[in-house]
């Protein structure tokens, strides 16, 4: 059964190249095939959760070479949780894309790039080698630059260029810190680095490396003050790609890498958690304040991504069991409702051709599915019970209070109120009120797009059930335990080879 571990990367890569080889000739390879392939990835992710639950942490030796000499892949609770998040969102986005991308030429390139990005994200999550993490990160990042520019308009190209400059800066910092880490520890295997750091003890090099990792991955995760590329890059992409970028890419490349490196490899200390707390709170408040003034639907959502990532980082930075559980749960919830909101904005753009909230109005009457699912998603992101966003925000705020960090808890509440205000604005301008004369003849979007939106909305409604003890022990507890064991990760990986 352990043989499913490399398949996450292999299946998505093979799909990407099959699509690019055959997609221009056969219609099957640009419609049904991506959906089948990503459905297979979802099934494998669910299998991996049960696998971790039965066997604990698993190490896969590529080509039979024993780490640290060979390259290994590591599957633990956190990896399987992230794999499920990424592949579930990707599956719904594939279904949505089939109808949405009809307006573009060279559709097969779109799906090929999307699967390359998926391969990169799955690789980042599953790998146990620091340099491989960088390579997969670049695979995902480079294909996302191309996807942001997929519309090839003036605005798209400018946003893509800006995104590429910032992304390359981040990658450069990450590569530099990996190089320094290699020169300090003489190994690239993450578990072996952890062991070597434990033997050598701390030094100023490690502090320098940590700072560069925080800046590099902070840029990838769009934490304030490294956020300013995101509000340009995410709205310019085609809507399903915005959903993918905001929903999972910034989490897989940014948040996941921060958690893995700072909790399991370097080992958490009071300074890094303090920095994460401050950065998280800043993002939470600054993101939402910028969001409130926006009238471009997708740009507003992009600013909210910054704000919600702040909640995740705040929960992670608390470093208490409840905080990490809440942070990870919010990560899952955010990927669901933010993708849903971006898909809603795509549906509105598909039918009306505009992203300007002031030009919309009363769309609920003509597009009931889009209107109602966006209402559910708005209430989730604003934290209204019983939707999933409420439970994760509640956990984070309770964790703040338990850890005696009342100020951060207060900021979390303020951020939530401001989020609700800005989504009331979205609902009022776009979906409620009187239908404008201009939109008398618009139609609801096709079935594939409706199907993905309804499914994501259902997950929003029933997402709170993940906290039930039986499901939580399987998924969220395993994930937060994988973070909480800290440097015990090193012994578990090296012990199982």
């Amino acid at each position: 059964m352990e043989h499913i571990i490399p398949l996450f990367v292999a299946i998505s890569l093979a799909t990407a190249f099959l699509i690019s080889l055959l997609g221009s000739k056969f219609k099957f390879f640009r419609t049904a095939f991506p959906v089948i392939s990503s459905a297979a990835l979802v099934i494998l992710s669910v299998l991996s959760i049960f696998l971790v639950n039965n066997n604990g942490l698993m190490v896969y030796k590529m080509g039979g070479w024993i780490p640290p000499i060979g390259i290994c892949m590591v599957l633990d609770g956190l990896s399987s949780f992230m794999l499920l998040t990424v592949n579930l969102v990707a599956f719904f986005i594939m279904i949505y894309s089939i109808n949405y991308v009809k307006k573009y030429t060279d559709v097969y390139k779109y799906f090929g790039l999307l699967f390359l990005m998926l391969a990169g994200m799955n690789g980042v999550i599953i790998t146990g080698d620091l340099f491989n993490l960088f390579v997969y990160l670049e695979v995902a990042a480079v294909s996302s630059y191309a996807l942001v520019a997929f519309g090839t308009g003036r605005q798209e190209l400018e946003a893509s260029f800006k995104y590429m400059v910032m992304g390359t800066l981040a990658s450069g910092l990450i590569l530099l810190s990996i190089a320094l880490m290699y020169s300090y520890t003489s190994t690239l295997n993450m578990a072996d680095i952890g062991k070597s750091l434990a033997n050598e003890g701390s030094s100023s090099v490690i502090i320098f490396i940590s700072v560069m990792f925080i800046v590099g991955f902070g840029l990838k995760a769009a934490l304030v003050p490294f956020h300013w590329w995101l509000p340009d890059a995410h709205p310019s992409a085609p809507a399903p790609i915005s959903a993918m970028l905001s929903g999972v890419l910034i989490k897989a490349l940014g948040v996941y890498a921060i958690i893995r490196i700072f909790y399991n490899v370097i080992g958490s200390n009071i300074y890094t958690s303090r920095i994460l707390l401050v950065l998280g709170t800043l993002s939470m408040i600054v993101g939402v304040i910028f969001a409130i003034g926006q009238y471009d639907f997708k740009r507003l959502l992009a600013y909210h991504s910054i704000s919600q990532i702040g909640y995740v980082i705040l929960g992670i930075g608390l470093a208490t069991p409840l905080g990490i559980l809440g942070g990870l749960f919010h990560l899952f919830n955010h990927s669901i409702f933010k993708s849903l909101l971006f898909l809603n904005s795509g549906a509105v753009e598909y039918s009306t051709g505009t992203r300007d909230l002031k030009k919309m109005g009363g769309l609920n009457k003509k597009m009931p599915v889009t209107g109602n699912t966006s209402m559910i998603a708005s209430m989730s992101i604003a934290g209204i019970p019983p939707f999933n966003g409420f439970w994760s925000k509640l956990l984070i705020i309770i964790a703040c209070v338990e850890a005696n960090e009342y100020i951060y808890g207060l900021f979390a509440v303020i951020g939530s109120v401001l989020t609700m205000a800005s989504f009331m604005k979205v609902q009022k301008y776009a979906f409620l009120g009187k239908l404008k004369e201009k939109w008398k003849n618009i139609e609801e979007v096709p079935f594939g797009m409706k199907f993905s939106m309804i499914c994501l909305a259902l997950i929003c409604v029933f997402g709170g059930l993940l906290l039930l003890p039986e499901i939580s022990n399987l998924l969220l507890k395993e994930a937060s335990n994988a973070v909480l064991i800290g440097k015990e990760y090193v012994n578990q990986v090296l012990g199982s080879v």
Partner: protein
Amino acid sequence: MINNRDSQGMSVIVKTITRLTIGLILLYGVYILLHGHITPGGGFAGGVIIALSFIHIMLAFGKNVALEKLNQTWSKIFESTGALLFITIAFLGFFGGVFFNNFLDKGEHFELFSAGTILLSNIAIFLKVGAGLFLLFVALVLFKIGGRK
């Protein structure tokens, strides 16, 4: 043989020298590719050198002559096939028990046909890198700048 029928490209001196050296460059690329597992080099270096021989034709004789030798459609097919071949070799490793396992007979040290799947992987990488590099160059050559509005 490359014929010199149109006036595109560089001067006669460059064209003559190119005609003499082009085969040697191609051959050297193939050598680097096939000996990747026993001497420095391999699929990436061999692929780059082989792609350079085609780029050399393009620089000296103009894009039409080069694209007659290897057109974009075939380059695209070679590129995707290379990547798929590499993944297939990795999947075939399951016959040896593990993903990426070197399941073939390793043979004698320093023989040309030794080291199992390494030679096959090098060939796959050569297809991907060679065709990819050539396509990048073609994209740069064919790209036309649109008018500013």
